[in-house]
């Protein structure tokens, strides 16, 4: 197997995540799909790290995990707030702002 095949897998997962963002309505699931995309990017980084023989990719992936953690905290806080107000976590329900 070509060691770069991981990249193809990552691209597929990234696309699945992006599609998930577009089709799901539950904000939390949408957010999980974004996590899928971040993970796909991480897999790409780790693979490139191995292909290029430098550890920078792994370091970056590590940073991404920390960033993702912070983002999750903020994101979930926002989602919980809006859920408490609307009793709904559907992103489609939040469309007062338009046109």
């Amino acid at each position, binding site marked *: 197997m070509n060691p770069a095949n991981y990249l193809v897998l990552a691209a597929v997962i990234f696309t699945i995540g992006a599609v998930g963002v577009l089709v799901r309505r539950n904000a939390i699931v949408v957010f999980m799909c974004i996590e899928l995309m971040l993970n796909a990017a991480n897999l790409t980084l780790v693979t490139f790290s191995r292909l290029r023989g430098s550890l920078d990719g792994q370091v970056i992936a590590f940073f991404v995990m920390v960033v993702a953690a912070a983002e999750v905290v903020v994101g979930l806080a926002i989602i919980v707030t809006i859920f408490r107000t609307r009793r709904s976590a559907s992103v*489609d329900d*939040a469309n*007062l702002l*338009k*046109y």
Partner: protein
Amino acid sequence: MTYTAASGLFAATWLLLLFPLVGAALLLLGGKALDRAGYQFATLMPIASFVLAVVLFFHLKSQPTSGRAVDDHLYSWIAVGGFHVSAGLLLDPLSMIFVLLITGVGSLIHIYSIGYMAHDPGRRRFFGYLNLFVAAMLLLVLADSYLGLYVGWEGVGLASYLLIAFWQYKPAAGTAAKKAFVMNRVGDVGLSLAIMLMFATLDKVDYAGVFGGVHHIGHADLTAIALLLLLGACGKSGQVPLQGWLPDAMEGPTPVSALIHAATMVTAGVYLIARSAPIFDLAPEARLVVTIVGAVTLLFGAAVGCAYDDIKKVLAYSTVSQIGYMFLAVGLGPAGYAIAIIHLVAHGFFKATMFLGAGSVMHAMDDQVDMRRFGGLRSVMPVTFATFLMGYLAIIGFPLWSGFWTKDKIIEASFDKGGTSGYILGICALLGAGVTAFYMTRLMILTFFGKRRWTEGVHPHESPVSMTAPMIVLAIGSAVGGFLLILNGGVQHWLTPVLGKSAEEGVHTVNGTVLTIITLLVVAGGMSGAYVAFGRPTVRIPWTPPQAGAVVTAARRNLYGDAFNEAVFMRPGQYLTRFLVFVDGRGVDGAVGGLAALVGGTSGRMRRAQNGFVRSYALSMSLGAVALVGALLLVRFG
């Protein structure tokens, strides 16, 4: 090309601008405290500028011819790397004439407005805007670079916009202001692109640099610059196809119509082309376009002027038409620049006279503008009548009045252009003179002669002195101005350093005397046509304009003897006029309106895409991402 640096008295050139600017700032920012006395102060400002301008004029005149272009450098406006524009003022014979005209006529109109706006609650604001306008207009003509000119250009646009919409309670005023704004923006696009193009080709936008480097610009670029400048000029001067806003702009107070839409701002386009003479000299194709625009506009304006009953609208179309004459003249190149400027100055006088006269009439008639409801005002308002008469005789080119000296020159120069185009242009100009005589005579007859057709409860009276005095001054100007201007070829010689030597007294295509006689005959024809149609004692002017059917009925009843006349001359003329009015209203406005509607409609439709759903937004982003990736890969592998 270089200009002498300003020293001595010339270093005070910037004060010309400062006076009205201070007035505007004080009145607009000063608040209610200045409601009482502010307007008097504001009136003093253009007068101060005028006095200074006269002093500067004589000082300039005392200089040797080569030293008559003085550059008053103010400060370094933009200076980065290879990008230098200085803010400066250029006082030369051309700008001097404009400064005198603007401050002179401007002062008179300020004085007139004291009476006219005496009871308006927004008087302070009005005078503030007037001052602002004068300042911007002075900057327009005094700037020493295209960028500075552009600043003034936008400034007068803004001031004119504020003044047109001044009577905010009139919905038409708002619409007219908006229309003026939009059409002017179309012109501004042309001007700003022209400036950008100059910079791109020459790295300079100041007059000295641009005119010094025109020879290095490729012909195509030069023509493009000239045509873009023309587009700008058309927008500001109400030339076809951007003429639509000017008649509508009459919704503003009458002094505004006089100041902006007759005497000064609308001539900015002529100034722009004359100022850009070195560019146009090298772009004959562009000049041809200028003449065509001028000829079409002069006929168009004159023809449409025959159709309206609104006294200010008629005067507005006559303005469009007269500026068409000036465009025609400047389009002729060195032969015509000076003539155009002379006509411009003369026009400033007589058109201001007539607008102020119209304002005086409206003032007396409770703001009535329909000429069908005037009539017989001659005896009630003798001063207004007398001054208006001066303006009238001037515009139709009655012998010895100013139009006679200036308009004839343009007709002559058009024929002198030579070739078929010369004949076509000349005949157009000649025809225009006849139509002008027709509609202006009609206006005179309907307003001042005949029976009184006033609406109930109107008691016309002569206007106060503050209004009549400026009218008298201007009327004198209209009467003798033309002659003074061409006396000894004074203005032409004066302008030669700026505009080049005009082909004076060369070989004429048509003998001068013969042409004068022909012109007079055409004018007389127009006058008598109007008399026959409206002036004879038997003619009854109905309150409502006759419809197509009504014309026939009216003709059956009153005009049996003129059946031939009507069939041959009146009816086709009426149809043509009606067609042109249609084109003016639906065609051009329709095009502009249609464009606006198209943009608006697109906007309304595109707006629906902003549907408030986060997932739709994410979808558009995703598709954008695909497009970006695809496009870049295409660049890479394509």
